[in-house]
């Protein structure tokens, strides 16, 4: 089991991560723009999130299996695994009443 993990780790380091350009997304006034993105199935996705609010926000989605804190006035890369077709909601956990979004996979 351990050797399997080691091989996995070696493979992971050797594989260039995320060849595709990241999707640009902005957070302002606790709202995502664009709030809806459409991506292709079976490909890893990267969202480059720029937080223009003064406060930190957590990009959170249990269906996308991702949680990433982006500090106020900062930016961060949200890396998402390859997905099968469907709709995957996400939210800003600290302001979930307004910060809502959707990833559509086709």
């Amino acid at each position, binding site marked *: *089991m*351990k050797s*399997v*993990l080691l091989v*996995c*780790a070696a*493979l*992971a*380091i050797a*594989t260039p*991560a*995320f060849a595709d350009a990241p999707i640009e997304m902005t957070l302002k006034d606790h709202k995502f723009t664009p709030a809806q993105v459409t991506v292709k199935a079976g490909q*890893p996705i990267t969202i480059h999130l720029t937080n223009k609010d*003064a*406060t*930190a*926000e*957590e990009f959170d989605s*249990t*269906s996308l*299996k*991702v*949680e*990433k*804190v*982006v*500090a*106020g*006035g*900062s930016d*961060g*890369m*949200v*890396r998402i*695994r*390859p*997905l*099968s077709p469907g709709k995957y909601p996400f939210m800003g*956990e*600290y*302001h*979930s*009443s307004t910060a809502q979004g959707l990833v559509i996979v086709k």
Partner: protein
Amino acid sequence: MLATLVIVFREVIEAGLIVGIVLAATQGVPRRSLWVTYGVTGGVLGACLVAAFAGELASLFEGSGQEIFNATILLLAVCMLTWHNVWMAGHGREMAREMKAVGAEVSAGQRSLAALAIVVGVAVLREGSEVVLFLYGIASQGGASQSAMLIGGALGLIAGAGVSALMFLGLLQIPAGKLFSVTAWLITLLAAGMAAQAVLFLQQGGYLQVLQSTLWDTSWLLSQDSIGGRLLHTLIGYNDAPNGAQLIAYVATIAVIMGLTRWEHARHPRGSQIPRPA
């Protein structure tokens, strides 16, 4: 106010369940509350530090600092839980029988407690930093929401602590002889779930990009968003859509803990009734 309540409740439960298991697992060990207090205090202080430097932390390692940090502290907790379980396999019987250790056993017991204090600290640190960031965000907006936020946060804290206490009291209902084997199992699954979560953070950070396809999806049966799903996620690492690398980490952690426990068990043939997850 409701948002604050829900978020604080959720994070407190996640850390509280782990504290409850640690308390149950160390029944009868002298000075355990002191160590658990160290763990909680350290975790709270650490959470404030992590929250204060969230931006700086995130920009480390080509923007993957946060993921690396999360994965590292989770793996640290996995090691500490493993160590505790293996140690218990060698010494559990004496402890269960005498409920107070003497001489070398005391210092060895303290070492195991120190390991568990780190686990408590890490759990509080992880969930606590989210609470701090969230509360800071609301507080900085100012206005009338501040008192509502305080009330919401306090209610969330009380409710979360209450549920954790119920879990702890429930564990205590288990007869002392069996309690150790139940907590040994709980700690094994807790560790396995943390290892799988660490893998997820590594993948999110751009590392370990293998076996990422979702193996199955049971969100229709029990969503990880639901309270039940979240509780099971914390306790046994329930994941409604795991990927291959996570499954390997989960199974490997259980296998390693069981293997080491049996090995330690064999070295202490007298302790044949001691707990082991097997």
